[in-house]
């Protein structure tokens, strides 16, 4: 049952990445399109605009969520690939724990800056 949930979350995080990464791409890189639709997002990649977004809870939430789902999707996918060539339960357990530790380290590192900016 645990593996069923792991796979189900792989699907869910895949869908969430499409939405959250879509928001990120549109705001950061397709600002000209936003202007075309009447949304003033000019200079969206400037330092001032980015720090302004970082001070808003909704943006911090979006970026931390994108980091979390991206890490889960990528690390679980990598784990599945590595498990294809492991031959023992012990090795599989080691791979799983290594992936969990790597995920936690990346998540902690990735959330430090937006949380620090938000809390001042």
């Amino acid at each position, binding site marked *: 049952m645990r593996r069923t*949930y*792991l796979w*189900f979350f792989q699907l869910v995080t895949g869908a969430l990445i499409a939405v959250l990464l879509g928001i990120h791409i549109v705001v950061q890189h397709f600002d000209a399109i936003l202007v075309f639709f009447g949304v003033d997002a000019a200079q969206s990649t400037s330092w001032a605009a980015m720090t302004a977004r970082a001070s808003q809870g909704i943006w911090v939430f979006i970026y931390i969520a994108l980091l979390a789902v991206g890490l889960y999707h990528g690390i679980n996918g990598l784990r*599945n690939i590595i*498990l*294809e060539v492991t031959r023992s339960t012990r090795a599989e357990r080691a791979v799983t724990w290594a992936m969990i530790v790597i995920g936690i380290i990346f998540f902690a590192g990735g959330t430090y800056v937006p949380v620090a900016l938000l809390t001042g």
Partner: protein
Amino acid sequence: MSGDSAKQVTFKVQRYDPEKDSAPHFQEFTVPTSRGMTVLDGLLYIKENLESSLTFRSSCRMSICGSCAMFINNYPRLACHTQIEELQADRLTIQPLPNLPIIKDLVPDLNPMFSNHKAIKPYLIRHDTAEMESPGAEYAQLPEELNDYLQFSYCVKCGICVAACPTSASDTLFLGPQALAQCYHYCADSRDEGEAERFPLVDTDHGVWHCHFAGACSEACPKGLDPALAIQLLKRRLTSQALRLRKKQQPSPLVLPPTESKPEIAYPEFSAGEGT
């Protein structure tokens, strides 16, 4: 066939005798071919006329038994179902099925596949054990319920799907498309109640979740089955059960056999001169 001029085709056959050879090697044979001749016919020609020690499996010669599955021109096929002409080549490379150990020459060891097949309990599992022990009636099944799994019951266990599967190539512990498709086959059977016993066997890191849906098994299957579809449907069953999205279905009820016997149809009588 007698009117066709014989075309010479070179059979490059992998040979391996574990008692004599340290590694597999190739041996070439020139075979006169004619229209309609299959790769199996060519191998039989070699065995009868050129090299009697060449070892391969074959039985029905009509793609029913699945015995003659082999790697022909780098693709898993049934030798009896592959005409030499359709390959459009003057040289054929014949090897045993990959992803399985070799016993000798073109004979793969199918035991790993059969072990996986056996592991998923490929038979009807019912809670009414008394009826299963001594059947006195029949399990009712609607035609649409039969269609849910019918195509998967045509599996001849030739091993071609396992040979084509890229996951089976990299993961020797992977259950393989044959066993997983058969797991779905029996779980989808409305007469069966064995999901609770089979799901823990396939819900593993080397089970159903390791299928990357390459679809190579479905493309290669000589019987036209779609094992990749069965595996995806099995994933759906597992997920919907884990998320409690499925309604508990009652297994097929017992129906008594017909009380009246069918009238016997008169056997036609033939006379010696009839039909000529």
